C-alpha cells in the first residue's frame, strides 16, 4: 500500500516534470517566433522609412541632375555614372582572375603546400575588413603605381574585395560536378583545358554566375575602401564618355577621371546637418538598397534553382 502511494507520488512528479518541459518547449517556440517576427518587422520598418523619406525625390530629375549646394535640385547623375564605370572595371578584373584562380585550385593544383597556401589566403582575404583594402589601394595603386584617385583605382580596389567571393563560388560550383563528366571527355581525347573549358565550366556556369552577381552587389554598396583612396564627395561633371564617334569608337580616358559613387554620395548627404539633404540621402539609399537586394535576390534564386534542377 505504501509502495503504491509512493509510485503515484512519483508518477505525479514525473507528469509535472513532463508538463513543465512541454511548457518550456512551447515558451521557446513562442520566443523564437517572436524574435524572428520582431527582426522582420524592424527591418521592414527601416527599409520602408528609407523609401518613404526618399520618395519625394524619386523622379527622373534626381537621376539626371548633378549634386548641388541646394538640396532641392541635387541629383545623383555623377554618382550612378561613376558607380557604373567603376563596376565595369571591377567586373573585367575580378571575374577572369577569380574564375581562373577557382579553376586552378579545383582542377589543376596538386595537393600540397602551394595549394594550401593559396587556400588559406583566399579564406583570410574574405574576412579582411574592406577598409584595409582601401589602405592597400591608397598605398599601392594611388601612390606606388601613381594611378591617382581615379576610376581605375576604385575599380581595382573593389575587384580585390570581390575576388575571394568569385573564387569561392567558382570552386563550389566546380566541386559539385561529378568525375564521370570529366572522364567521358578525356575518353574521347580532350586535353585537360578542353575538358575544363568545354565541359566543367559549362556545367558550373550557374554557380559561377551566382558568385559574380553577389560580388557585384557587394561592390555597389562598398563605401569605406572608396573613401579611403580619396574619392571626391562632390563631383559636378561626368568622366569622358567610354564610347566616341571616332574610330576605334571606344576611349579609355574615363579610367583616369575623378569620380564619385552612389554610397559616397549618400554618405556625403547624411553628413550634412540640413534635413533636405537627408531626403536626398534616403532616396540614394533606396536606390542602392533596391539594386543590391534585387541582385542578391536573383543570385539566391539562381542558386536555389540550380540545386533543385541538377540531378546527375
Amino acid at each position, binding site marked *: 500500500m505504501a509502495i503504491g502511494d509512493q509510485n503515484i507520488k512519483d508518477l505525479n512528479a514525473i507528469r509535472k516534470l513532463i508538463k513543465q518541459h512541454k511548457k518550456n518547449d512551447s515558451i521557446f517556440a513562442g520566443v523564437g517566433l517572436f524574435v524572428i517576427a520582431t527582426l522582420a518587422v524592424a527591418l521592414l520598418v527601416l527599409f520602408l522609412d528609407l523609401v518613404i523619406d526618399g520618395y519625394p525625390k524619386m523622379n527622373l530629375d534626381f537621376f539626371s541632375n548633378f549634386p548641388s549646394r541646394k538640396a532641392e535640385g541635387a541629383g545623383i547623375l555623377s554618382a550612378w555614372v561613376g558607380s557604373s564605370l567603376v563596376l565595369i572595371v571591377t567586373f573585367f578584373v575580378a571575374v*577572369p582572375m577569380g574564375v581562373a584562380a577557382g579553376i586552378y585550385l579545383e582542377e589543376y593544383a596538386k595537393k600540397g603546400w602551394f595549394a594550401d597556401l593559396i587556400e588559406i*589566403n583566399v579564406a583570410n582575404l574574405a574576412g579582411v575588413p574592406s577598409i584595409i583594402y582601401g589602405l592597400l589601394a591608397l598605398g599601392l595603386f594611388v601612390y606606388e603605381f601613381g594611378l591617382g584617385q581615379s576610376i581605375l583605382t576604385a575599380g581595382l580596389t573593389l575587384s580585390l574585395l570581390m575576388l575571394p567571393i568569385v573564387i569561392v563560388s567558382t570552386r563550389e560550383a566546380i566541386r559539385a560536378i561529378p568525375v564521370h563528366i570529366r572522364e567521358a571527355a578525356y575518353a574521347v581525347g580532350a586535353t585537360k583545358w578542353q575538358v575544363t573549358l568545354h565541359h566543367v565550366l559549362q556545367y558550373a556556369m550557374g554557380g559561377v554566375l551566382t558568385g559574380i552577381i553577389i560580388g557585384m552587389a557587394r561592390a555597389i554598396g562598398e563605401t569605406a575602401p572608396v573613401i579611403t583612396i580619396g574619392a571626391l564627395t562632390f563631383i559636378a561633371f561626368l568622366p569622358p564618355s567610354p564610347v566616341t564617334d571616332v574610330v576605334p569608337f571606344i576611349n579609355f580616358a574615363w579610367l583616369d577621371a575623378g569620380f564619385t559613387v552612389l554610397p559616397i554620395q549618400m554618405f556625403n548627404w547624411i553628413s550634412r546637418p540640413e534635413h533636405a539633404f537627408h531626403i536626398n540621402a534616403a532616396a540614394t539609399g533606396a536606390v542602392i538598397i533596391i539594386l543590391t537586394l534585387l541582385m542578391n535576390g536573383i543570385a539566391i534564386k539562381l542558386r536555389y534553382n540550380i540545386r533543385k534542377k541538377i540531378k546527375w
Partner: protein
Amino acid sequence: MSKTKSTVSKALAKNIRRNFVERLIEWALMLSGLIAILITFGIVFILVTESIPFFEVVSIKEFLTSTIWTPNFEIKNYGILPLVAGTVTITGIALLVAIPLGTITAVYLSEFASHKLRETVKPILELLVGVPTVVFGYFALLLVTPLLQKIYPDLPTFNMLGPGIVMGIMIVPYIASVAEDAMRAVPMAMREGSYAMGATRFQTAKTVVMPAALSGIIAAYILAISRGIGETMIVAIAAGQQPNFTFNPVESAATITAYIVSVALGDLEHGGIGYQSIFAAGIVLFIMTLSLNILGQWTRKKFTERY
C-alpha cells in the same frame, strides 16, 4: 610503313603544340591563384612600409599605451587606446544585441521551424547579409538615435549606443546563418536518440544539438566579432569622430575605422604624419581581425572534423 610514320610524327607535332598550349594555360591559371597570396603580402607590405616613418616619430610604447589620440591638435598625441576603446565598446553593444537574437533565431530555425518557414527565412537572412553598411549608418544616425533620445533625452547626436544596436541588428543574420548551418550539420541520429529518451525539442536543442554544434556556434560568434571590429560606415556616420578614451555607450567616440575614414575625407598629404598614422591604425585593425578570423576558422575546422 612510311604512312604510319608520318601519322605518328604529325600526331607528335600536334602533341607538342597541344602540350605547349596546355602548359601556358596552366601557368596563367596558376598566376591568378598566386594573386591571392600577393594581395595578402601586399596588405602586410603596404601597412608596414607606410607606417615605419610613423613609428620613427612615435614610439611603439607610446602608441600602444598612451590614452590620448589628438592628431589634429598643436601637441600631437598618438595613443591608439581611445580608438581601441571605441571599437571594443561599439562591438560589445552589437554583440549584446546580436548573440542572443542570432542564437535564438538559429535554434528556432534549425530545431523548431517547419520546413516551409525555414526555406522562407534562410534566403531572407542571406539577402540581409548583402545590405550595404552605409544604409545601416543612415538608420543609426537618423532613426535609431532620435528614437533613443526620446527615452534618454541627454543622449548626444553622436553616440556609441545607436550605432552599436544597429550594428547588432546587422550582424544577427550573419550569426543566425552560420550557427544554423552548424546545428543542421549535427547528425539526425543524435536528435532521434534524445527524442527516444523522452526529451522535448527544447531539451534536445539545449543538451544535445547545441553542445554538439558548439564549436560551430562559437566560430559564428568569433567571425561576428571580427566583422564588428572591421565595420566602418555605421560608426563613421553615427558614432562621431572624436577619439575619447571611454567605454560609456552614451558618449561619442571614434573607432579605428572611423579615424581612417575621417583622415581620408580630409586633404591627405602624402608622406605626412596624418597619412602615416592611418596605416599604423590599420595595422592594429588588421592584426585584430586576422587573429579573430584564424581563430574562428580553426574552431570551425575542428568541428567539421568530428563527424
